[in-house]
């Protein structure tokens, strides 16, 4: 009798039959029916129509049946919220059951039902369960808090569950402690600013005690939590390390790797002279090696991490080279990683072994692996100088095999070896030339041409060789064409007499017959150089080249240090610091985004006091040349906001070409009718075509994230520029940045990944429904404590209240009310940020008295800024937004802020309940 029978009924009336069975009087039949329902559910069939019938089976004393019904409920409650309510009573009753297993089961299931109405009823039972006498119930309840937080964070805060959860860290039962830590870590991840896990020596001590006794999974959570702690001195670091070290012998590899993370991180604090430091280094090697005897998937993750560890501390594994030797039946992803680490560990001491292995690999079947092995030989030559000769001869042996892709890879790496050790191995050129005809990959052809051009004086028939390439010039890839052009020019400079014709030919091919602007430009440059001053041309073209760096593929030290803190995480697998990328966007935030749009439109259509002038026809003749900064939103002469929305700063260079291998990125941020976008300008200043662009943001204060992939439709040819508008959303992961509006961006192309950071103007985050209701404004205004108030003045801004109001409105800063007190115009402004934070302000305008005081906010305040602006036709915008923001962050600089502003503001940031 097996469960497969539950799958067999596929007749028409299946649901109908099940319904009848569920309502049967016979217990056994009922249970069988529920099992059938569950079986259908497991294969993704929709059995939600049976909801009421299944729920009816819930009140039973049969634990198995109860569990099955609970399983069903968890799956379908969301689609049938009204029905789910029917189950609430049973849940609440079960939470009082004398059997702790049932109490735990009930509270656990309730937490899984993501229906608001049920959540309301969950609070009381949960509170009881968190204080239950039975640790099994407590540990289940701890996890339930995390579930509830995911559904309704505010509720969890209001109900004080977070504090109870924090108390559970001191629970007597280690399993409860572990789950509390896990729950808190998960909550903290979605609320990076909240200081949930305030780690201090006392709580660390508790965690370390629990570490010894709880389950393997709990140990992982605790170790990951410990890794976030910064010990106050080296003694504390050492004592924590001592207590964590035993975890290195755990059978669970995740425990081992988390322990390695803690040790690697805290080791930074230990003095290298300490005996303990040496002991610790020795202790780290065996567990890392042991990870490599596990299943291939575990090996892969371990290898990615070891790759980081050997870059940071090569001494740990320097004697363990052999464990990274590749077995022929390793999966390819393990093979490639092992190879990478072998090269990182290669040194004079072990190079002979490594080379013998690499040579072996170069005869394997898998093409990708063979290619990488051949490249690895080249990398060894560049890394270990003493081995260069042996590497070259190994490569020559490989070339003798005549296997096409092996030969091509070998030639590519030999070119690099020439550049590292000039005038040493040129004797092999003859052998290389024999293989000229078999090269069909652009990279190999280009490498070969480079070699011929560079050493033209030693190759008797260099002109013939290059000429043979020239025949199919137009069919070659750009890479090869460029190389050929340069190669022939080099040849000409070296042997001018016999190659005149050849150079003429290539120059005319490049400049007259080619569509590629890069090729044409290079051709013209050479042409002019050669025709005006051959001596100078020689100096330029045949200039001594800088040696190539020893290891171009090392991870940059600061990034490496950051990644070491992420050992064991997904970041360590991708060798990229955590980005806002895939992870979670909570439903509440998404809802907020929808509201924002809807509300924004409403206020535009039915706004009471001030409606934005809808068609502010701003004639272009106002003489504000873009780029001079006049394109700001307080354009004096126009006096009205434009429909296109808020002020847009001119594009600034964010990533200079020299830092990004030729890719220059400049950009700015705009906000237009509810959508934020990042306007980018990508310029290719390199010599090769760029493709495969992608962009990603790090987590940031407001959860900005690309709403669409970076679309660069055609490959970006050298010297080409494209303009792209990248829509942004604010549903990404949130992490407080310093300064608040800092945005770290990674841009990828076929060449590399580049990182830069930029500051975005806060006003792009001001939402369209930022106009607060009058009553609400009044009530909130009164509730703001005085110490939260900040005040400053804007000098010399001869605008009247109307003009100011409409200008601000174009940036989504709304006037809620206006009054006149003793000749002064008082404007009450509100704005709302995308994350739901309201900012209120009072604007006092005194005609004819352009005075200014600027007061810094209390440190608890959330800084914000207004796009402040100009006076008397002279623009001072540049980075007004930036500057004012800075002012908020650093009170000192406020005094030095010699901005000319007109009004004085009272600003009260407050957070309203959503």
């Amino acid at each position, binding site marked *: 009798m097996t469960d497969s029978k539950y799958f067999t009924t596929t007749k028409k009336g299946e649901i109908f039959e099940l319904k009848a069975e569920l309502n049967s009087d016979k217990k056994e039949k009922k249970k069988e029916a529920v099992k059938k329902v569950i079986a259908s559910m497991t*294969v993704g069939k929709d059995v939600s129509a049976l909801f009421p019938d299944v729920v009816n089976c819930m009140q039973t004393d049969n*634990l198995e049946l109860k569990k099955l019904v609970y399983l069903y409920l968890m799956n379908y409650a969301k689609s049938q919220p009204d029905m789910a309510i029917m189950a609430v009573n049973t849940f609440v009753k079960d939470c009082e059951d004398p059997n702790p297993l049932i109490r735990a089961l009930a509270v656990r299931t309730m937490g899984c039902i993501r229906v608001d109405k049920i959540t309301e009823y969950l609070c009381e039972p949960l509170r009881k369960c968190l204080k239950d006498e039975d640790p099994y119930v407590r540990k289940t309840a701890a996890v339930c808090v995390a579930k509830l937080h995911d559904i309704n964070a505010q509720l969890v805060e209001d109900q004080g569950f977070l504090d109870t959860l924090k108390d559970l860290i001191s629970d007597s039962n280690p399993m409860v402690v572990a789950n509390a830590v896990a729950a808190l870590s998960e909550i903290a991840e979605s609320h990076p600013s909240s200081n949930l896990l305030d780690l201090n020596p006392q709580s660390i001590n508790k965690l370390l005690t629990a570490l010894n006794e709880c389950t393997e999974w709990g140990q992982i959570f605790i170790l990951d939590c410990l890794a976030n702690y910064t010990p106050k001195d080296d003694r504390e670091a050492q004592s924590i390390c001592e207590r964590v070290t035993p975890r290195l012998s755990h059978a669970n*590899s995740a425990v081992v790797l988390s322990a390695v993370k803690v040790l690697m991180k805290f080791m930074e604090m230990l003095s290298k002279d300490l005996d303990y430091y040496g002991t610790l280094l020795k202790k780290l090697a065996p567990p890392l*090696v*042991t990870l490599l005897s596990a299943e291939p998937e575990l090996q892969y993750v371990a290898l990615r991490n070891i790759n980081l560890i050997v870059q940071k501390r090569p001494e740990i594994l320097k004697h363990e080279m052999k464990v990274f030797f590749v077995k022929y039946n390793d999966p390819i992803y393990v093979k490639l990683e092992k190879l990478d680490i072998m090269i990182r560990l290669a040194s004079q001491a072990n190079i002979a*072994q490594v080379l013998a292995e690499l040579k072996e690999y170069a005869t394997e*079947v898998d093409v990708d692996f063979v290619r990488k092995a051949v490249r690895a030989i080249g990398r060894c030559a560049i890394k270990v100088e003493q081995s260069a000769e042996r590497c070259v001869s190994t490569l020559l042996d490989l070339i003798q095999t005549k296997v096409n892709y092996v030969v091509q890879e070998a030639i590519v790496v030999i070119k690099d070896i020439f550049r590292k050790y000039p005038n040493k191995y040129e004797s092999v050129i003859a052998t290389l030339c024999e293989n000229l005809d078999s090269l069909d990959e652009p990279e190999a052809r280009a490498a070969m041409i480079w070699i011929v051009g560079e050493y033209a004086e030693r190759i008797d028939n260099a002109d013939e060789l290059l000429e043979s390439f020239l025949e199919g010039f137009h069919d070659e890839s750009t890479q090869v064409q460029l190389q050929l052009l340069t190669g022939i020019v080099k040849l000409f400079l070296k042997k001018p007499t016999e190659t005149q014709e050849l150079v003429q030919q290539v120059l005319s091919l490049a400049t007259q017959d080619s569509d590629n602007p890069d090729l044409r430009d290079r051709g013209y440059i050479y042409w002019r150089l050669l025709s005006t001053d051959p001596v100078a041309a020689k100096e330029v073209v045949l200039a001594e080249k800088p040696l190539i760096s020893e290891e171009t593929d090392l991870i940059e030290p600061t990034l490496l240090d950051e990644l070491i803190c992420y050992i064991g995480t997904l970041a360590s*697998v991708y060798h990229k610091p955590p980005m806002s990328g895939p992870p979670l966007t909570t439903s509440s935030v998404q809802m907020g985004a929808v509201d924002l749009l809807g509300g924004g439109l409403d206020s535009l259509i039915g706004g009471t006091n001030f409606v934005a002038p809808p068609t502010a026809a701003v004639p272009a003749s106002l003489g504000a040349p873009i780029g001079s900064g006049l394109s700001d939103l307080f354009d004096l002469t126009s006096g009205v906001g434009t429909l296109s929305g808020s002020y847009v700063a001119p594009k600034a260079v964010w990533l200079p070409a020299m830092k990004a291998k030729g890719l220059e990125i400049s950009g700015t941020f705009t906000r237009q009718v509810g959508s934020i976008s990042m306007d980018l300008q990508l310029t290719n200043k390199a010599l090769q075509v760029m493709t495969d662009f992608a962009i990603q943001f790090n987590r940031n204060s407001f959860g900005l994230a690309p709403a669409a992939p970076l679309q660069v439709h055609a490959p970006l040819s050298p010297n080409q520029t494209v303009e792209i508008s990248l829509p942004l959303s604010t549903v990404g992961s949130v992490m407080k940045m310093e300064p608040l509006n800092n945005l770290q961006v990674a841009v990828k192309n076929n060449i590399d990944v580049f990182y830069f950071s930029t500051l975005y103007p806060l006003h792009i985050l001001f939402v369209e429904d930022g106009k607060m209701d009058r009553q609400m404004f009044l009530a909130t205004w009164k509730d703001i404590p005085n110490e939260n108030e900040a005040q400053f003045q804007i000098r010399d801004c001869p605008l009247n209240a109307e003009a100011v109001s409409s200008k601000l409105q174009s940036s989504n800063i709304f006037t809620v009310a206006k009054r006149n007190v003793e000749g002064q115009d008082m404007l009450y402004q509100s704005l709302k940020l995308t994350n739901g934070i309201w900012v209120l302000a009072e604007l006092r305008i005194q005609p004819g008295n352009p005075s200014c005081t600027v007061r810094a906010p209390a440190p608890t305040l959330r800084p914000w800024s207004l796009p402040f602006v100009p006076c008397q036709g002279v623009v001072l915008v540049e980075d007004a937004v930036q500057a004012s923001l800075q002012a908020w962050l650093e009170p000192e600089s406020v005094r030095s802020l010699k901005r000319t502003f007109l009004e004085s503001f009272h600003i009260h940031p407050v957070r309203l309940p959503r």
Partner: protein
Amino acid sequence: MIHSLFLINCSGDIFLEKHWKSVVSQSVCDYFFEAQEKAADVENVPPVISTPHHYLISIYRDKLFFVSVIQTEVPPLFVIEFLHRVADTFQDYFGECSEAAIKDNVVIVYELLEEMLDNGFPLATESNILKELIKPPTILRSVVNSITGSSNVGDTLPTGQLSNIPWRRAGVKYTNNEAYFDVVEEIDAIIDKSGSTVFAEIQGVIDACIKLSGMPDLSLSFMNPRLLDDVSFHPCIRFKRWESERVLSFIPPDGNFRLISYRVSSQNLVAIPVYVKHSISFKENSSCGRFDITIGPKQNMGKTIEGITVTVHMPKVVLNMNLTTTQGSYTFDPVTKVLTWDVGKITPQKLPSLKGLVNLQSGAPKPEENPSLNIQFKIQQLAISGLKVNRLDMYGEKYKPFKGVKYVTKAGKFQVRT
């Protein structure tokens, strides 16, 4: 934490899904299928795949893919370990971890998954505990259940969840009290063309089968504990005792479990029990080649080497092989190009050999690479590292248990390059 789990068979059907948080659509697996398509071999599917909104972390076990969906930052090793634990549990409950077994027990599977993970946090993964919560299926029990109407689910709280020893249930009773240990060592080695060792190490485990009543407290000591410098312990072992006295002291789980695993690294000399003489050659411009291997004992410590099998992945251009063997039997699968030679025991008087002709596809270039030989063997009553158990003492209980230790050495990943 772990969001969802999909079980996928080799033909790409999703035959089971389980969600611990909100439901994630099956279509997320398309990214997995895409990666699978790219990988030439099922074993080459990368274990971590990122998609626009999720990460997929998968393992490949017993011809099944366990694909988990992750939404927040989770240590990938944690997920992979957990997935293997799920597979282990299926194996433990149903005797095999196969699509058929899972489909036959789908409700138990669902109950198990629900019990093992709550909201993505592991809840109960110890076999001892799970078996108290959910009874494994047996023919007898299903008969009894259908007569008495009782269920598979236990309704008492397993005590292990509460005690400080979460791995052992209380109230264990046996009439015969026994404690057996298997010391199993596997040799991983790469031998190069000339017969010298490129790399060798020993992966050892001590598996225990403990059927002792009450709460026994055991101490296991070794004649030469110094050999064990790289060890992973079952959580039951008291680490401090090991550090100070090099004695394994523990209250065991009930039943079968892995006590320790250890590695004797390549720095120590690892004995290589067999040697292979080989000559494999392919002639240029002709459609045949020669194949000749002989296998013999090397450092076998006077024990018999048995259960020898040699597996060779021949190059693709090989059409067929005409071989004769002095011992055992061989098969060649012309589709997968795998040659398997089942040798059996080695008797030093007459060394087993396998030789003959290799037929190649005519016209194809001769293979660049020579195939590696994969060798399996077994040596009973020997731990090749020399590890020896000294004694086992029991405290805390009055009765006298039966005790026993067995040793066996096997080939792990033992490869000979030719």
